[in-house]
């Protein structure tokens, strides 16, 4: 090989001339920009171009074409030429190479030449492992990678990625774009956990994993929420709900508002549900915000009547409603044209002041807390509004005497319309500067939010009395549940997915937790086949008599198995299970020996018995010498049969939107079974469903005599809903099955999510209610205590009649069910 650079260059030029017209032309065009960098460099450059071209035409052409620009903008031809040669070592490199050449100027600008070279090396290493990953790397804007911290910033992202790639074989290219976003949102410390979670999910399923790294889907939301900085609402939802319930007597449903970091943690509402951000900066701010917004719901900001009057005051006859019967606010603010933001903020200021005054009366630290939070005054026009808000708080705290509009808002009969009137007066005064959208958010004090961001469902009449615990059911009036779209039956009708049974027929109101207009009538598909199933009588309240052999119960095995689901549920509820177990070991396990009295043998004397014995002897009788006391471990004498309602309605989406009812049900049953294994009581689990009186299915899941096996677990994992709820027949059958238990005290726990109903009750709710009531009574006569746990928030309305006072419990938070079911049982049992 010739050493002279000129000769080498000429060789390359000739070679390319023969090979490709385009390449030759590009080389010729680039040469003038390269030649100033020295003959040796130019020769090496040309050779590189040729080599790349020979390996991959596209790569070579891209190199030659990019070169003049690089030579001009970056210089250092040697450096990038050498690095480009790196792309010769593997096939299919052109895409990565093209991206490298395109990204290099920016890399040099952001990182400097030396670090840009390290950047290039890293990308090259990626590309060697997977050319596509290399392309993604080089396409990623260097400024995003560095995030203003130079190469250190780049390494923040690349190091954990490299670590994971080495340990789990995680494809780096897949994770990189997401990782940059995650760092931007949550900071570098969140990267590691996020990536590890992603690697796990990727292992479980390619598609899920890819969605995760695209920051899409539930897995991603969950993982991001878990690493979110600040006070995370999802983890503290119950706490927040309890505080609001205690403080204001109402606990609105909370729903996540979606992930948003870096913006103000505003709460929005549709009049029923509070949409809360995933995290608040601090616990105090979360509490303040939640109390404030629950206060809006409590004190009539969204009350039907107040809204009606507000619109009349504003000169509109009716509040405009959208398709969902929600009030839309836009027309109201449209009255203020261009300046609507200024008015909107003033209106909110007045209404927030009014509500905070009311909340303060119930929670004396509410206003002081808001004042503490309102420390940082924003700059710009928002500051004036912020000051006004703070002035209001100072009045409420008694530091400043209330005057003018504020005094009017403190009047006992002040309401939404008062706020409107006062805000309009303030608006007309015009003392406050105009606002634009960017400034608006800063105008709100921490804890407060714009009140009219969403259309709202007007709330029915406002109760103005303070929450009266004595009022009993009254104060527990269930909150209207957020509009959950009815499950679309097409393609996913659980009724259709149960093969072995005849499941035709329209559901009507049957099998749904909430009553719907009756559609089904009593039509019988077939006549009763003698001998199929066990016949049971049914109570007809209209005739005041039993219908003999009216309902037939058939025992069927559940055929679906899903141990993976069971395992996943158990893993998810592992902390709860652990806590339960610990509590059980500490308290419930009968390790305390219980004395047995009046035994014929034993380790100590039973004093009472001995005295009786002596006395009897004195009187001349010949009593049996049962005068000893013995300590024995207590024999369990409680047996429980858990009867789960497996009707269609359990397949519904949970009201809070995450998952389905059946998942919580499965988890609850699993935890229940495992807790009882721990306690050692005799227990059985069964499910029931029905379709017409002659086809009541009873599904034994675990019998008294059997052990809990992985098979049982799989059955529980595979539970699904079907058909309707003929509860009476199921209870009667369960009572028969109790015969196996052989325990003195028998508890029949019924877990349901709706009222008893069946396809053939002709829409007469009362019929099956009355029958169930009789079945419960029959059970009681046999010494079996029936207790109903329901997920139906309106359950109190009918369950008291069926089961009697104190014999049912409404679990109004679905998430609580898995945790509470075992606890409820233990509590019931301890009562005895």
């Amino acid at each position, binding site marked *: 090989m010739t050493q002279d650079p000129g000769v080498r260059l000429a060789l390359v030029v000739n070679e390319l001339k023969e090979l490709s017209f385009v390449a030759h032309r590009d080389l010729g065009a680039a040469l003038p920009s390269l030649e100033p960098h020295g003959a040796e460099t130019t020769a090496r450059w040309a050779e590189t171009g040729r080599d790349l071209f020979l390996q991959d035409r596209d790569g070579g052409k891209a190199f030659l074409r990019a070169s003049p620009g690089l030579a001009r903008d970056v210089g250092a031809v040697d450096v990038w030429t050498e690095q480009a040669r790196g792309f010769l070592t593997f096939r299919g490199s052109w895409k990565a190479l093209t991206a490298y050449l395109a990204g290099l100027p920016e890399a040099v600008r952001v990182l400097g030449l030396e670090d840009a070279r390290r950047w290039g090396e890293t990308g090259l290493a990626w590309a060697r492992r997977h050319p596509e990953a290399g392309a993604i790397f080089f396409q990623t804007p260097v400024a995003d990678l560095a995030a203003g911290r130079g190469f250190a910033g780049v390494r923040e992202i690349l190091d954990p990625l490299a670590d994971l790639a080495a340990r789990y074989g995680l494809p780096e290219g897949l994770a990189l774009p997401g990782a940059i976003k995650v760092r931007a949102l949550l900071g570098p410390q969140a990267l590691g956990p996020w990536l590890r979670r992603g690697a796990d999910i990727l292992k479980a399923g390619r598609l899920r994993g890819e969605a995760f790294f695209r920051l899409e889907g539930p897995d991603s939301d969950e993982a991001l929420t878990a690493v979110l900085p600040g006070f995370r609402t999802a983890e*503290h939802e*119950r*706490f927040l709900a*309890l*505080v609001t*319930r*205690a*403080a204001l*007597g109402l*606990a609105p449903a909370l729903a996540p508002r979606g992930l948003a970091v870096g913006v103000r943690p505003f709460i929005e509402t549709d009049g029923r549900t509070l949409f809360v951000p995933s995290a608040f900066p601090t616990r105090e701010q979360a*509490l303040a915000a939640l109390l404030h917004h629950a206060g809006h719901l409590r004190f009539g900001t969204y009350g039907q009547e107040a809204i009606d009057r507000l619109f009349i005051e504003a000169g509109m006859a009716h509040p405009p409603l959208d398709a969902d019967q929600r009030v839309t606010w836009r027309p109201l603010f449209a009255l203020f044209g261009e300046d609507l933001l200024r008015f909107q903020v003033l209106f909110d200021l007045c209404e927030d002041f009014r509500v905070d005054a009311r909340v303060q009366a*119930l*929670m*004396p*630290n*509410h206003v*002081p807390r808001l004042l503490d939070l309102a420390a940082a005054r924003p700059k710009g026009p928002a500051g004036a509004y912020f000051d006004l808000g703070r002035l209001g708080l100072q009045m409420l705290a008694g530091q400043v005497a209330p005057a003018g509009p504020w005094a009017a808002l403190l009047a006992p009969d002040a309401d939404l319309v008062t706020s409107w009137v006062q805000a309009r007066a303030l608006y007309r005064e015009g003392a406050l500067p105009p606002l634009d959208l960017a400034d608006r958010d800063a105008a709100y004090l921490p804890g407060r939010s714009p009140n009219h961001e969403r259309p709202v469902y007007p709330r029915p009449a406002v109760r103005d009395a*303070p*929450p009266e*615990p*004595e009022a009993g059911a009254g*104060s*527990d009036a269930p909150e209207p549940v957020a509009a959950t779209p009815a499950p679309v039956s097409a393609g996913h009708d659980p009724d259709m997915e149960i093969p072995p049974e005849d499941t035709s027929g329209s559901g009507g109101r049957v099998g749904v937790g909430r009553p719907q207009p009756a559609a089904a009538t009593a039509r019988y598909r077939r006549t009763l086949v003698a001998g199929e199933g066990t016949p049971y009588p049914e109570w007809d309240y209209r005739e005041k008599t039993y219908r003999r052999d009216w309902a037939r119960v058939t025992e069927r095995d559940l055929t679906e198995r899903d141990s993976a689901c069971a395992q996943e549920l158990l893993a998810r509820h592992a902390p709860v299970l652990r806590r339960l177990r610990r509590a059980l070991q500490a308290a419930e396990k009968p390790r305390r020996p219980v004395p047995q009295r009046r035994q014929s043998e034993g380790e100590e004397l039973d004093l*009472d018995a001995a*005295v*009786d014995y*002596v*006395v009897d002897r*004195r009187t001349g009788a010949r009593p049996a010498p049962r005068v000893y006391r013995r300590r024995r471990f207590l024999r369990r004498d*409680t047996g429980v049969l858990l009867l789960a309602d497996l009707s269609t309605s359990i397949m519904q989406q949970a009201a809070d939107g995450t998952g389905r009812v059946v998942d919580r049900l499965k988890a609850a049953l699993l935890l229940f079974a495992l807790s009882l294994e721990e306690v050692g009581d005799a227990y059985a689990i069964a499910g029931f469903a029905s379709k017409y009186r002659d086809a009541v299915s009873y599904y034994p899941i675990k019998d008294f005599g059997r052990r809990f096996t992985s098979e049982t677990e799989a059955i529980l994992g595979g539970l699904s809903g079907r058909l309707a709820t003929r509860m009476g027949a199921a209870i009667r059958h369960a009572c028969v099955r109790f015969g196996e238990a052989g325990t003195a*005290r028998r*508890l029949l726990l019924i877990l349901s999510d709706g009222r008893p109903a069946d396809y053939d009750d002709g829409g007469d709710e009362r019929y099956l209610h009355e029958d169930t009531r009789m079945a419960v009574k029959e059970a009681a006569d046999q010494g079996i*205590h029936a*207790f109903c746990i329901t997920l139906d928030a309106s359950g109190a309305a009918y369950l008291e009649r069926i089961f009697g*006072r*104190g*014999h*049912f*419990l409404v679990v*109004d938070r679905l998430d*609580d069910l898995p945790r509470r079911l075992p606890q409820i049982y233990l*509590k*019931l*049992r*301890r*009562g*005895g």
Partner: protein
Amino acid sequence: MRSLIDRLRGVERDIVQAPDAGTGPYYEPQGTEIAVFEAAWRRRLPVMLKGPTGCGKTRFLEHMAHRLGRPLVSVSCHEDLTSADLVGRFLLDGESTVWQDGPLTRAVKAGAICYLDEIVEARTDSTVIIHPLTDHRRRLPLEKRGLEIEAHEDFLLVISYNPGYQTVLKDLKPSTKQRFVAIEFRYPSAEVEARILQNEVEGLDPALAARLVAIARQARVLKDHGLDEASSTRSLVYAGSLIAAGLPPVEAGEAALVNPLTDDVELAMALREIVKAHLLAA
């Protein structure tokens, strides 16, 4: 002087005691309970006091016993309580045996008010022996001695009963319940409860009493949302006493109103928040 000595050492007192002179135990009426009780007393009808823990059932009865001038015999029932524990038993005395009356028998003979607290807890055999006492017969059979005691004309049987879903397995039999006139107790209204607090805790600032009551009222909303027993008037009195004894209000509230009520972490946090809301500024 007498009371000083009593304070220095525990004093044995017979369970049947004529009521002390003086005004008697403090009780703040919540409704018609006094009238109902007095009417039942005039007709000697057995009474059942229903209501949650710490709402003043026992105090009410002490007050009524004093008001009616009758001795009060209280028996706290527990799961090992047998009928012999109530009625009485033979004891050995040297070469012979003697019969010793149980508290119920003593009360029946002395014409006292006999109070069986939390009767559900006792064994079923002991609930059955009160049946003949609760109807027109008003007799207590002493099987072992083969005789029956006709109740003193002033004898009155009172039981207490705390309904709740905890007692499903252990409910009183309807046949037992029916034999009683029932008075339902609830937690007192806010004003009454504040008055009770100020009466029970000497020197408690009225504003502070009102704050404590506000806490209890908010905490009671959480009953059945994880809280099995709501904050009772008694626990409010405890909280007030702790404050009067010099403890900072928030700590007193935590010690009397949060920690005893629940082991549930989130619930305790929520209760603490309520306590802080009302007492931090106090």
